[in-house]
């Protein structure tokens, strides 16, 4: 019997497929305290690990005395680099082609570096024992500034690299130099500058910041000495890559290593890397034959695991007198800390920084990035952005404003004049990126109309004319383009593994389904949105589609979730796996209805015989048939796997406008209005998109207005707790207005481009632009972040604007 007749429209709504603001499937467990995060995992016989860390930033280790710690009741082991040496595990390879110390080997390179581990019955005893480990240090001169690091007589930081004149990314020109990476055409850019009537340049520093997810990093490792199996629950955004690395490091076959990323309390790039803590917990479990848990505390998290940014940038633009940009040059000195542990595709040591020509048609461009060692923690991850795209967008958006101010042009007008035009897509930039689609002019007009831009400028002019105005008003406008969805394997790999992603879909006999993915959600809502893609593709209600990720023993291999790659890469894998199933289902339906495949139409959730609505088979009917009585010669079952290697990146874009009012007495900056228009192509779940944008804007607000990791000359990190490191509360956080246009990606199976990082990438330069714009009438072209009240107040004083 067929179900009661429902209109196609009603059936489509019932699926809750793409476009529906479906409530989240993952919420039920989280709102009842039933999430399962790494620190929630308990295993029989589990021990606890804690880490002895260096109090100084650069020193030789003279002696480590474990005796007092080992004598404490409940302490099982104290391990140092010397203990790991026979296993060849005292150093490990980084994703960037360097090596990093697992435990400091004769020398410490940054404050809080891992020097020894202690394993004990519980975390209290472990913490006591850490205090009892005595380490004697001989302090060495510390280098904090990357420019100082490159001076001829600078201290040698990496003695292990002595004599190595080339690294993973080409020649090394100095003992503290890692690489120099270039993109674009230097000769063409130099020629554009040689003849340019207008030139501007600006130095800017993008501070070292930390992604600081609310859950810190951690691991529960369990080695079974009888079976030789290793299971590790890890806070990882890329569990499959971790499995490969753990297998390579330990020599345990990959088939005997199981990595599980359970629920993750936010990642934002912090959980891409493979940290000494994970490796040590695994080693400890192997050595002791018992499960070992390690969870870092907040100070350890901010101090040691994966900082972001720390780019010292010099930008230059060449232009015509009427504001057409004809050339761009960029030079960056990148502080990578003690080990080059950036998480970038192998061929790109500065990530995708060469997206720095932005949304503009710039005919000639060149950039050069120099990576440098200093006595700071390693990292250089993409903090809620695609690889170094935040730095790139900040640079170009700041430079366009600098040029506009030099020419006395309006900041919207100069952008309209230089935008890549709709008809130019697909557009190849001077750096070689092929932008897939966009309509920047239309999006900009939508925002300017929505906020009544001329009225805002008029209000600003009136305020500037009034010497008694208690506030300065600034308007920040940013028109950004990202490059996400890494990436095509011909360009992008991690440790040699192409940056594809994967999906396996299995339809059960009764018509429900399970999808297993190579990605891992950290709050993005994959269990909800991925099901929606399948619902639309296969006509199965999203409610009965389970999505599983994060367990390498069950999920197909994938490169994980970061760089806004889940929807652009894994989302495409879902659609294409579903389409394989759809093709088989069509054959089964034709067999069941006794017609040829060509006589069938697909409508929402069923194949129906052309011209006869009463003859149809739903996907549930077909699923049953596929297990029960498939057509002769056809394999039973209804499932498919797809590994998707994207042909190109995707290029989401957005237009953000921010209005700030700066108190001339205190320097306090109030965000009066923030209007964010995003174009992420096809929209899968508008509710989740809005949520992602709110979150990204708030993280951008934090970076621009308060986050920094300040170091003193001795290499002490002065802000590594939440007392010092700025995470905004509900009180400081502005209210966000969101809007969108939809320009689908032409090369993506469902046209989706990825969204969650755009608001972080786009908002940071918008806040800076707004603050600088408040000072533009007195000739200020740039102010470095963070725009704290004190720093803004100092600018007010400097320009005689303070009340």
């Amino acid at each position, binding site marked *: 019997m067929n179900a009661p007749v429902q209109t196609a429209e009603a059936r489509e709504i019932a699926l809750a497929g793409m476009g529906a603001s479906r*409530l*989240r499937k*993952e*919420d*039920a*467990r*989280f*709102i*009842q*305290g*039933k*999430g399962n*995060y790494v*620190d*929630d995992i*308990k295993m029989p016989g589990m021990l606890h690990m804690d880490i002895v860390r260096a109090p100084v930033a650069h020193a030789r280790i003279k002696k480590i005395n474990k005796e007092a710690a080992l004598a404490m009741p409940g302490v099982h082991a104290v391990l140092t680099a010397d203990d790991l040496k026979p296993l060849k595990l005292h150093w490990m390879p980084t994703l960037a082609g360097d090596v990093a110390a697992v435990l400091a080997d004769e020398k410490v390179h940054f404050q809080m570096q891992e020097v020894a581990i202690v394993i004990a019955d*519980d*975390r*209290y005893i472990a913490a006591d024992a850490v205090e009892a480990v005595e380490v004697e240090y001989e302090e060495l001169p510390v280098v904090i500034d990357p420019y100082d690091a490159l001076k001829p007589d600078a201290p040698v930081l990496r003695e292990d690299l002595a004599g190595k004149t080339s690294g993973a990314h080409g020649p090394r020109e100095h003992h503290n130099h890692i690489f120099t990476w270039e993109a674009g055409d230097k000769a063409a850019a130099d020629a554009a500058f040689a003849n340019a009537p207008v030139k501007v340049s600006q130095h800017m520093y993008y501070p070292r910041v930390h992604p*600081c*997810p*609310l*859950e*810190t990093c951690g691991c529960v490792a369990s080695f079974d000495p009888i079976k030789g199996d290793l299971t590790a629950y890890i806070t990882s955004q890329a569990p499959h890559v971790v499995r490969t690395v753990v297998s390579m490091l330990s020599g345990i076959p990959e088939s005997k290593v199981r990595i599980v990323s359970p*629920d*993750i*309390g*936010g990642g*934002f790039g912090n959980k891409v890397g493979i940290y000494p803590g994970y490796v040590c917990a695994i080693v400890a479990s192997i050595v002791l034959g018992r499960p070992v848990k390690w*969870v870092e*505390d*907040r100070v350890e998290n901010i101090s040691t695991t994966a900082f972001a940014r720390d780019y010292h940038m010099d930008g230059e633009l060449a232009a015509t007198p009427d504001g057409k940009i004809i050339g761009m040059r960029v030079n960056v000195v990148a502080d990578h800390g003690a080990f080059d542990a950036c998480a970038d595709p192998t061929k790109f040591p500065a990530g995708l920084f060469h997206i720095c020509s932005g949304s503009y048609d710039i005919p000639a461009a060149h950039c050069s990035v120099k990576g440098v060692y200093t006595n700071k923690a390693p990292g250089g991850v993409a903090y809620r952005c695609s690889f170094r795209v935040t730095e790139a967008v900040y640079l170009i958006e700041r430079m366009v404003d600098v040029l506009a101010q030099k020419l006395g042009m309006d900041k919207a007008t100069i952008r309209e004049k230089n935008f890549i035009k709709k008809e130019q897509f697909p557009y190849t930039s001077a750096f070689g990126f092929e932008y897939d689609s966009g309509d920047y002019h239309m999006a900009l007009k939508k925002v300017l109309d929505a906020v009544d831009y001329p009225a805002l400028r008029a209000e600003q002019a009136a305020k500037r004319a009034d010497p008694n105005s208690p506030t300065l008003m600034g308007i920040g406008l940013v028109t950004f383009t990202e490059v996400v969805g890494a990436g095509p394997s011909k360009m992008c790999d991690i440790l040699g593994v192409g940056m594809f992603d994967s999906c396996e879909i299995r339809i059960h006999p009764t018509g429900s389904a399970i999808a297993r993915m190579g990605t891992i959600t*950290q*709050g*993005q*809502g994959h269990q909800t949105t991925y099901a929606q893609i399948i619902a639309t593709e296969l006509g199965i209600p999203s409610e009965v589609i389970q999505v599983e990720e994060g367990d390498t023993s069950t999920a197909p291999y994938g490169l994980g979730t970061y760089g806004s790659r889940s929807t652009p890469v894994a989302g495409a894998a879902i659609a294409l796996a579903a389409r394989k199933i759809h093709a088989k289902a069509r054959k089964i339906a034709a067999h069941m209805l006794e017609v040829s495949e060509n006589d069938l139409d697909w409508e929402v959730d069923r194949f129906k015989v052309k011209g006869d609505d009463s003859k149809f088979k739903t996907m549930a009917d077909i699923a049953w048939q596929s297990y029960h009585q498939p057509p002769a010669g056809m394999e039973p079952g209804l499932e498919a796997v797809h590994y998707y290697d994207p042909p190109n990146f995707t290029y989401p874009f957005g237009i953000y406008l921010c209005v700030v009012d700066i108190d001339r007495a205190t320097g306090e900056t109030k965000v009066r209005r923030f209007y964010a228009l995003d174009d992420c192509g096809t929209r899968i779940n508008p*509710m*989740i998109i*809005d*949520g*992602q944008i*709110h*979150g*990204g*804007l*708030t*993280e951008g607000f934090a970076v621009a207005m308060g986050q920094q990791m300040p170091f003193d000359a001795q290499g002490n990190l002065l802000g590594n*707790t*939440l*007392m010092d490191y700025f*995470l905004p*509360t*509900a*009180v400081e*956080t502005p*209210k*966000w207005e969101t809007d969108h246009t939809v320009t689908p990606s032409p090369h993506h199976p469902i046209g989706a481009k990825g969204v969650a990082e755009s608001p972080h990438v786009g908002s940071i330069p918008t806040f800076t632009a707004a603050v600088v714009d408040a000072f533009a009438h007195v000739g200020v072209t740039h102010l470095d972040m963070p725009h704290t009240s004190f720093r803004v107040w100092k600018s007010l004083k400097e320009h005689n604007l303070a009340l």
Partner: protein
Amino acid sequence: MAKKLINVTVNGKQQEKAVEPRTLLIHFLREELNLTGAHIGCETSHCGACTVDIDGRSVKSCTHLAVQCDGSEVLTVEGLANKGVLHAVQEGFYQEHGLQCGFCTPGMLMRAYRFLQENPNPTEAEIRMGMSGNLCRCTGYQNIVKAVQYAAKKLQEQATATA
């Protein structure tokens, strides 16, 4: 270390346990009682992921000793729903997409639960201030505000219905 016997009612159930005097309440709840809803985010009382309710007050359990709870009534997120029916704040967070990674959520819910008893009819500014001891890295708070507003309305409707 010598242990001290404490009597504490957690989610309506009386618990008599011997604990080290230095045991933090969050560890007592998570490791002794296996109530892993409340989380540790900062160890310095800033993030609020560990918020629970003790004798009618919101308390950050990462900087509170278990022995301080001797004789107290503690409510955690696991005790918020009543016989399978979600509390209004839980429903509000679900309906208004007030959570993403879920790590701050148990603390947020426990704070919202107490805040709406302190101020049943709050303005948006009062919600933002009342919830400001709890940090969220994912949502940007906008939907958390909406979730608390949803819960306030629902609780008022429930109060009216029972009056």
